[in-house]
């Protein structure tokens, strides 16, 4: 049985035979191995493309989809499949998008139970860092003229998509508090693709998907240390585009992650 058949039998999809595929396969064997969740989503694919330039990238999702990167379907249950998923991984980018069309129950379950299972398995496997992609919608309850930084208290609503992200942060925070994982939370604005929103009136929360990928790369490389705005094991950053009328300041991400937003709607 060759490697391709072996991996496919294990639920890992490898597609085609292009130079890009070879690059992806080669990069997956590099030392800096990154696991990205919600691999079915466009955002995860964009992040994988960005990180795959100089890192070994693997994707996982609830449902297998074709990808130029190794892809392992996994339900993130409390089982050996989740344990095996994180073996040899240096850092996890937990995109944490519930399945499309998920109801309130599934959204909360995905962001709490599956996040807990993933983090628990990561700890046991010696994963060093977990990036949790959250949402700036947790902070929109403040007056719009406030400059709301990462030090402000989240104000989640009871809307399941927002509440679930808050609970996901809540779950990850305990792993950081116990010093079991380094956790970096990136609170994202509304993720858009520049070409898709061209000509539209700007939403003050927009962030371009490639900006997110760049922030993720910066968060993977960032040195964490005791800091006036957070201890080394737990950091939170606002991540959105920066333009006249944009809602949240991103100075901390620029300073600590080398974030360089460029999208000007």
């Amino acid at each position, binding site marked *: 049985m060759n490697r391709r058949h072996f991996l496919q039998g294990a639920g890992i999809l490898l597609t085609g035979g292009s130079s890009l595929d070879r690059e992806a396969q080669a990069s997956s064997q590099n030392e800096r191995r990154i696991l990205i969740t919600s691999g079915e989503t466009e955002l995860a694919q964009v992040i994988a493309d960005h990180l795959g330039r100089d890192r070994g990238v693997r994707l996982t999702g609830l449902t297998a989809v074709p990808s130029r990167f190794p892809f392992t379907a996994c339900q993130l249950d409390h089982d050996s499949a989740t344990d095996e998923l994180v073996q040899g991984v240096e850092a996890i980018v937990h995109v944490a998008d519930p399945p499309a069309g998920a109801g309130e129950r599934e959204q909360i*379950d995905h962001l709490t139970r599956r996040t807990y299972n993933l983090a628990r398995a990561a700890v046991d496997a010696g994963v060093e860092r977990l990036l949790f992609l959250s949402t700036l919608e947790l902070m929109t309850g403040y007056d719009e003229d406030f400059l709301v930084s990462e030090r402000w208290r989240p104000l989640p609503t*009871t809307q399941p998509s927002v509440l679930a992200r808050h609970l996901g942060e809540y779950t990850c925070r305990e792993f950081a508090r116990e010093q079991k994982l380094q956790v970096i939370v990136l609170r994202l604005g509304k993720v858009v693709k520049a070409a898709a929103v061209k000509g539209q009136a700007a939403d003050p929360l927009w962030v371009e998907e490639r900006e997110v990928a760049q922030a993720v790369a910066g968060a993977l490389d960032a040195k964490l240390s005791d800091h006036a705005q957070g201890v080394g094991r737990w950091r939170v950053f606002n991540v959105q585009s920066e333009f006249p009328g944009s809602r949240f300041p991103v100075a901390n991400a620029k300073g600590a992650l080398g974030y360089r937003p460029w999208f000007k709607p």
Partner: protein
Amino acid sequence: MKVLIIGATGYLGPHVVKALEDHHQLLLTDIKPPKENTPHPFQRVDVSSMEQVQRAAEGMDAILNLSVLREHRRIAFDVNALGCYNIMRAAVDHGIRRVINTGPHFTITGPLYEGIDHGITPDVPPHPSTILYALTKSLGQEICRVFSQHHDVYVLDYLFYNFRDPKQVKRGSGGVPFIVSWDDAGEAFRLGLEIELDRLPSRCEIFFISADMPQGKFLNEKTRRVLGFKPKDDLAFLWRRP
């Protein structure tokens, strides 16, 4: 008052029923029926089922959530976290303004508090830890808190550690520094149902339900002050020389 009790047939439930049955109209629910005959109506309700919780909540004035699952990974999340979501949704949908939720002390004050501090009160930032039971209950409590911020529903969150029957324990036998008798625990629910909601400091309040403990580690002062809780059973003898 019409009171829905979820998790009514567990360890704590019968003691709560005993404390309330002369004062309120009770609907008992659980996944298992009561072991003994009861004069109160019973419905089989799995708290992780939104549909079942919604149906049981119809026409109620208050909900007591005594449900708990400690060990199984999936069910702990279903019962302790999603269960609270279902209860709060049902409370909002049915105009129920009073919910008493329950959990262990480490819902809020986990090992980082207990192992180090004294004079611990319930009004501190939650540090539940990654212990499954603690974290899932803490997520449930956080769901309750968020709902109380956005809807006209009051949540009293009762935290416990250990229960004892004073007749069954010996002088000098010791224990954790946060114990209450079953009878006093039941009485706390009567107080929680009877306090006027506008006398609560906010729409989400957390209480340590404990006897007066000699160690000074966890404090029940707020429970005494706000709810008028006066534990009848003195358990300090657990730490006195035999």
